[in-house]
């Protein structure tokens, strides 16, 4: 599948990003709605469509900054740029959380 490798690398890095309040990473918390990539002159451009657990989350800007910075952490993809598309529709719900994370949060 086209861009499958780069998307996988982005997912891996998303698993390293945490809201400092919640002991589960962004990906397993179900905050990532999709990753879309396209070729552009000079490299690949990916858009991470994501949400937050709360529209008033006070660390939102720090989280979004970390998502945008993922491109600098993937060394074998020169020219990769990543932007974050923050949406609140559909709203996040606890059904988005992976089973492993549910276990960590004491939900299972």
């Amino acid at each position, binding site marked *: 599948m086209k861009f499958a490798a780069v998307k996988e690398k982005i997912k891996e890095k998303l698993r390293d990003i*945490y809201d*400092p*309040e*919640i*002991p589960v990473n962004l990906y397993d918390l179900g905050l990532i709605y999709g990753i879309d990539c396209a070729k552009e002159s000079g490299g690949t451009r990916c858009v991470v469509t994501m949400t937050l*657990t*709360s*529209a*008033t*989350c*006070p*660390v*939102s*800007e*720090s989280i979004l*900054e*970390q998502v945008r*910075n993922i491109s600098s952490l993937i060394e074998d993809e020169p020219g990769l740029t990543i932007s974050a*598309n*923050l*949406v*609140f529709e559909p*709203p*996040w*719900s*606890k059904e988005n*959380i992976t089973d492993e994370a*549910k276990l960590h*949060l*004491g*939900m299972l």
Partner: protein
Amino acid sequence: MFSISQDFAPPFKLISPFFILGSLFYLFSSFYIFFFSAADMSFLDTKVIGFVHLFLLGFVMMTIFGAMAQLVPVVLEVGHFGVELFYAIWPLLLIGTLLMVFGFLESPALLPYGGTVVLIAMMVFVMEIFLTMFKVKKLNIVMSSVLISNTFLFFGIIFGLVMALAYAGTIDADIGSLLKAHVYLVVGGYISVTIMGLSVVLIPMFGLSHGFSMKPLEISMGMMSLAVVLVVLSAFIKFDIIENFGYALAIISQLVYFYHIYIIYKTRARKERDIYAISLIFSYLSLVVSLLLGIAYFISSHEPLLLAAAWQMFFGFFGFLITGHIYKIIPFLVWFERFSPLVGKQKVPMLSDMVPKKSSSAQFFFSAIGVSIILVAILLQSDVLMKAGASFLVVGALAFVRSVFYMINFK
């Protein structure tokens, strides 16, 4: 794309004095209990009134004002009108509180001075909030709660100042009526409505609760607002039916609010029993106990029941709700100030790593035992139990102060 402005967070050095002083006043309030005599406690006893002001102004209001400096932008989604004004609020509130407490205990002549300084502190706070609210384009229910509660506070402090002047003998006025209006406007109108509004933002945010209706909040806030207006009116027109209806509405309002919190609790994703969760559980159980004692008082008119209800509401409900939130708010502010610039460059702590486990647990257990023993002491009018409870409370308060300094100095 949805965008969120992040330029609203006030500097930590502006907010930290509120929390440091708040924790110290919590400790002073706990010490103060040693001077109570359970056998002849009364609402009109100047020791009791002094204690209420020490606890409510020094701990509850000081901490709420500091928290509001941080939370108002979160709730209103706009920046403060003049966040620097908070640099003036805490010294004024500190001086005013001390003058008032000494005034009640030693020299009533100090009361108008203390009352005026507190009035200025609160007016600066209320005006700052009102001017900030002018920036809001559309009010939601939580924003409305900020507007309503601060309007009640505005009138509450006016009545308080008039009462202080009457108490000191400067003017002639019915202190009993003013006291009733003052207490209801500040405790029911400001503190309760503020707690209702902010808690339905903060508790779901920390517990990851979603998909619950805001209708119970609208009902409980409307009922509490009406209750405050009715009791204040009845204080001056002396109409018992209106007054009793107001009291009943206030109790029902709190029960509806409790139901709302229960729904939020049931829909939460996070099930950890950390210091925040157990503090809130104790806090809301205290609210229920307080309401039951209040109902028992209306049936029996036995004053210790009312004193016990007030105790459980103040030290049990307000106290634990505030201390519980301190364990979330201070780590966040410190993290935001010291660690957010390091994100992505080095490993940064999680907020839970910044909470001292042993002293926070000690604070919870000693304070919870202390509050419960004093509740029994008030009901049984036992001095021995009162002193025993105060001993537990002081140890809990020392652990709380230690926790606050640990979190503030976390590096």
